[in-house]
């Protein structure tokens, strides 16, 4: 069940950096809003924009993708490819009417636990400002 008032966020995180950063947020007890759902991928390069499109259609208020900082990718080049793909996906989604604030693409390292928590909190706040506007693309039975 989702906490109805809280915006629903899908966070796709790379295993080696961002997912570890999210774990560090936990170890350090940096709290963040409860409606963040994390999906682990081996590398941000694994992220196919079809996943981002599907997330919006399935009713997520916001989608976040995070990987290792450029230059630090565990697989050396995956995040460079992710960067291009996701940049194009963002342009497409904005073009059809998804509000830019609903997407947040960033780099979070395994050492940036605090940053992860802060990013989730700030993203949630931005999405709350948009509540009341249509959850674009979402299936009619899920749209608010």
């Amino acid at each position, binding site marked *: *069940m*989702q*906490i109805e008032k809280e915006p*629903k966020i*899908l966070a796709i995180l790379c295993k080696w950096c961002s*997912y*570890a950063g*999210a*774990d*560090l*947020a*936990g*170890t350090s*007890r*940096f*709290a*963040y809003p*409860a*409606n963040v*759902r*994390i*999906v*682990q*991928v*081996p*590398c941000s*390069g*694994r*992220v*196919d924009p079809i*996943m981002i499109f*599907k*997330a919006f259609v*399935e*009713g*997520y208020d916001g989608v976040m993708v995070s990987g290792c900082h450029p230059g630090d990718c*565990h*697989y*050396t*080049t*995956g995040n460079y*490819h*992710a960067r291009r*793909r996701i940049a194009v996906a963002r342009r497409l989604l904005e073009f059809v009417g998804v509000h830019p604030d609903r997407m947040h693409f960033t780099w979070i390292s395994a050492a940036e636990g605090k940053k992860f*928590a802060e990013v989730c909190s700030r993203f949630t706040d931005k999405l709350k400002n948009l509540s009341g506007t249509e959850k674009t693309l979402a299936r009619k039975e899920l749209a608010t």
Partner: protein
Amino acid sequence: MAKVGVFVCHCGVNIAAKVDVKKVVDTLKDMPEVGFAQEYKFMCSSPGQELIRKAIKDNNINRVVVAACSPRMHLPTFQKALASEGLNPYLVSMANIREQCSWVTDDPAEATQKAIDLVARQIKRVVHQDPLDEIYVPMTKTALVIGGGIAGIQAALDIADGNRKVILVEKSPSIGGRMAQLDETFPTLDCSQCILTPKMVEAAQHPNIEIRVNSEVKKVDGYVGNFEVTIEKKATYVDAQKCIGCGICQEKCPVKTVPDDFNAGLNTRAAIAIPFPQAVPAIPVIEADYCKKLIENKCGVCAKICPAEAVVYDDTPKQETVNVGAIVVATGYREMDPAVYTEYGGMKYPDVITGMQFERLISSTGPTGGELKRPSDGKIPKTVVFVQCVGSRDESKAHAYCSGICCMYTAKHTMLYKHHVPDGQAYVSYIDVRAPGKTYEEFVRRAIEEEDVRYLRGRVAKIRRLQNGQYRVYTEDTLVGRAVHIDADMVVLASAVEPQKDAVGLAQILGIACDADGFYTEAHPKLKPIETASAGVFLAGACQGPKDIPASVQQGSAAASKVLALFAKDTMVKSPQIAAVDPTACTGCLTCSYVCHYSAIEEKEFGKRRVAEIIPGKCQGCGACVATCKGKAITLAGFSDDEIYEEIVSCR
């Protein structure tokens, strides 16, 4: 029909303090996929794992979800529990309800609801997880070392001493590399040949080392543990088995115009020659482009006078394929040609020479027998200016990087100069002096304090040749703020360290990467300076980046240790979470191959079509190709579209 066993951990109070574990179990046990659900205080403990085993045995579950800490903590623990009960270890998934739930959510009601959702997602996901078998890659326990310089020799010796066979491939006729060309080495002023030749001989005589000179690697197929390497030996026209190394062929050869690479182009030599007196092996090679017999079928003197009948004019290049389990790349560096510095004469002035050329002039095996004479008129130079950073730290004309060794060898050169010409005066034009190694700083101070070398901080703007045969060096002393010119008899340019000319070509053959400067790229600049992105290919020495002899030796030994660790097992276990192409769905566009950092994607024939194929030994499981394939012809085991889809869409 999947039947999931769900185990929700309290983790003491770490989870239970915020998450109502009982409610999680009660809510989820009625999901159609769930065949068994239980809570427990510490799932990672022995009794906890026993619960899983018991459920597999007694309740027929064939998938497991453990809701507990992060999978980065204990997934292997639970995988072992499954395996011990005969269930494939890849059929377990963990819901992270500690680091990513109880520890980051203040309100217990919210934490509980989040935990329920997280566990439900993993239940949906685990149903789509397939059993995976560990991949065992057989290990051929022979190593290939490419490059017979000091780094390659060290690597070969260490691997051979570890009781493994080594094939040491060297392009030139002798091993020894750059170090063989040096006169004395810093900071000890050891005679370079004297400390090097024992190692060269040891390598030549070591029962586990097979040296192949005049040879190059042309092709590498396969993957770690199982490389197939094609080595081409060039035509040398001398039978190595018969030659006794007497050198009479070299004496009697009428052609004397071959540029002598060992002496850095300062002189020429015969068309048939041993590269240098201490060569290992000491077997001459005929330079086909200069040999009268090979070009116009005249002469033939060497064959006539050879007491061992070792000259073979109808020699051809020969290729052979060898099987090795690991490759060490130790191809070294070359000295940049500073001709681009036209302000220094563009290398047209005979007495403006490079560091390596100076090294050869003062070397007793060099073109002047070790007497420091000006190439132009043979006079002894009484004033020498040594210019540092020629081609290094100079983004505008050459390389932005620092070549690392020139400050030290320039200080060495000034000292050796003073030993040769005690009444001479040496100047050094420098930007900084980099002397970071053990006793390096003290070494430089010796040059300044004991040999009266004048260090002038400033870059040389121009070198002009004077009528009297001297060279006016225009520079500045920035520490006093004055322009300075020095009339020198000789100028030595500390020219930059560059990768070998064919470094990029070899990188492509090996499937490794070069950085923007052409040096080979290591797997991680801080923590993995020896490995490359290609499993089983290691780096040693200056081919990875400019470095001095001790650092090259260190890396040679480091690479050897990596190889020996690899060879310690008979087979290599590899994670089965790698990608695979379904050839029936593949169009053969090979767009995926552009994104694979590990060169793991190759073309294959599939009936009449071409399709992509992923080499399991090379794939590291990043999934970049999976995301590239529009038709979804590639699946990544463990992170397939099915599995990720379930995690995304299961919103309860």
